[in-house]
């Protein structure tokens, strides 16, 4: 939580072993072990179709996790993205039914998500309401509105062009391509661009960031706006993945994404964390979700597993923090 740390991407002193000590490395090793274990237990797990499913399942939480990483790195939180996802999914689904050109539908969807994110950001940055309250309010507000307006009806019979998430390129599903490209771009952005580094500064030590001349309010506003934008991209994949959109779309999605980010090594206190780690976190959750089905564990336990993972990750974070202090 001090300013010098905030600018060192992997944490403390750089040594040859440093990359191995990071949460990302631990996570990657754990993920590899888990996949190996699952492959041994049920060889069907490694079939191409299943791997494709796992990656598609990971793609939209991973993309939403990009925005969430930026939010949490800035020491804020957004628990409303499940509802933002629902708004965008239902809106684009309905617009597609009216016969509007599909690219325009997607554009409006992205705009809507960005706007909802910007609204959160304005309330947090300029009205100075704590982000947990703003997004708790937004969570129920937008969810209630979606259910009220749709009356719980499902949307289906969208035109073929709408379902881009079902198509593949070079044998790899489109959502997976989107995930790879966006993760790579956002990772570079957060690591090397001045704006990205400013997000770390805002979360690491707000006072110091302000004294360094970083416009805190504008950055916080921007972070929430970006989060809405990435949630909207996730929503487009979500909506076009299957042939129906349900009005309870994305219920609990915020939890999945926050888990991915925190498990990926982003400190909930802000200031540290990487996009790459969040990506691994999203992947891990998707593997666990599918793995549980393969091992015939009742899906009812999934939430317990996710919740325990988040606790484990934050406890590890605290332990590591203490070691850093001791050194």
């Amino acid at each position, binding site marked *: 939580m001090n300013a010098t740390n905030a600018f060192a991407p992997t944490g403390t002193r750089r040594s040859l072993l440093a990359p191995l000590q990071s949460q990302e490395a631990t996570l990657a090793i754990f993920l590899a072990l888990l996949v190996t274990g699952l492959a041994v237990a049920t060889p069907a797990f490694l079939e191409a179709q299943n791997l494709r499913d796992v990656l598609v399942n990971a793609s939209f939480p991973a993309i939403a996790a990009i925005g969430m990483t930026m939010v949490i790195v800035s020491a804020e939180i957004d628990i409303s993205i499940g509802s933002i996802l629902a708004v965008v999914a239902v809106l684009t689904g309905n617009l597609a039914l009216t016969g509007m050109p599909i690219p325009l539908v997607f554009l409006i969807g992205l705009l809507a998500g960005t706007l909802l994110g910007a609204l959160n950001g304005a309330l947090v940055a300029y009205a100075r309401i704590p982000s947990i309250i703003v997004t708790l309010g937004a969570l129920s507000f937008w969810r209630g509105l979606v259910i009220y307006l749709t009356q719980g009806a499902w949307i289906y019979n969208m035109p073929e062009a709408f379902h881009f998430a079902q198509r593949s390129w070079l044998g790899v599903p489109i959502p997976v391509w989107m995930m790879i490209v966006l993760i790579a771009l956002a990772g570079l952005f957060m690591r090397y661009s001045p704006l990205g580094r400013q997000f770390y500064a805002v979360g690491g030590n707000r006072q110091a960031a302000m004294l360094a001349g970083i416009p805190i309010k504008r950055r916080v506003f921007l972070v929430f706006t970006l989060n809405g934008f990435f949630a909207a991209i996730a929503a487009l994949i979500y909506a076009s993945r299957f042939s129906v959109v349900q009005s309870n779309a994305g219920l609990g999605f915020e939890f999945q994404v926050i888990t991915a980010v925190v498990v990926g090594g982003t400190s909930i206190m802000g200031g540290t964390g990487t996009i790459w780690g969040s990506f691994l976190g999203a992947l891990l959750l998707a593997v666990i979700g599918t793995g549980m089905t393969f091992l015939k564990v009742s899906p009812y336990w999934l939430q317990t597993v996710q919740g325990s993972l988040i606790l484990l990750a*934050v406890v590890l974070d*605290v332990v590591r923090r203490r070691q850093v202090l001791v050194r």
Partner: protein
Amino acid sequence: MTLERKMLRRSFFGMSAFLKSQEGLLLLILLVVMFILSRMSTQFLTTGNLLALTRLFVEVGLMTLPMTMIIITGGVDLSVGSMFGFTAVMLGAVWQYWGLPLPAAIVVTLGIGTLCGLFNGLLVTRVRLPPLIVTLATLAIYRGLAFGVSQARSVRGWPESFQFLGQGYLGPFPIQFLLWVSAAVAVALFLGRTAYGRYVYAIGNNETAARFSGIPVDRLKLALFAFSGFMASLAGTIFVARVTTTRADAGTGMELDVIAAVVLGGTSISGGSGSIVGTTLGLLIISLLRNGLTLAGIKGDATVIIIGAVLVLAVWLNRLFARQR
């Protein structure tokens, strides 16, 4: 203005001071809400409806008591809705599958609730994790346990004597209403009149200073989180007695109602101030809005929209007022 002058003015214009306070403002809002709702539906302002209404808000009301104190200390407990659902499921499981007699099952359930809260508290005080993230995680864990233990099956066939707890009357008052009133009075007295109650405010105002003053910060916080779990399980038990079935999804999103009532009641989300009177007024406003809007023909989902908006608005207004003072 000097302090003496200020105090003189306050005693002189006691009434206007009350109206300017958060509680006075809330009372005014409450009356306006009741007036509007009674215009919208003729059934609203009947004794029958108002008494029936008390049944509905008691479950949320019980949970607002520890939540008020936790928020005053600067924390929050997002897991109350899940503890509510989990303990309701456990009551059914303990009673039906373990075959314990019902009174023993209730005691075990309350114990489980307290343990759930204690677990939150230990993570906050021993491991030093932020309450927000701890209870966000346990929100999922306890809800998952509720689904996992019950496998989404419900337990029915509760005896008459137990249903009395959720449906019976003592004189004109529903049983659980009396329970809630006595709990609220007890907590209000604790907060306002005991040393430990004042410590709660001290922690919220400046935790470091409180620690240096020798206040047992960690023990008090631990007790508050455990109390939160206890109240959630008590509310869960009453819920089962009221609807005579257990559901794994019971209380989903309930934390919103609880926190909204507390925050609407003028408890600052950043800690240090708040009162049980305010929380109770906030609770009444939210419950009346829910019930009144439903009677006026507005569907349940729409009331969630309003509560979400009210929550954000209340905190914002609170900020504005706080800045003026």
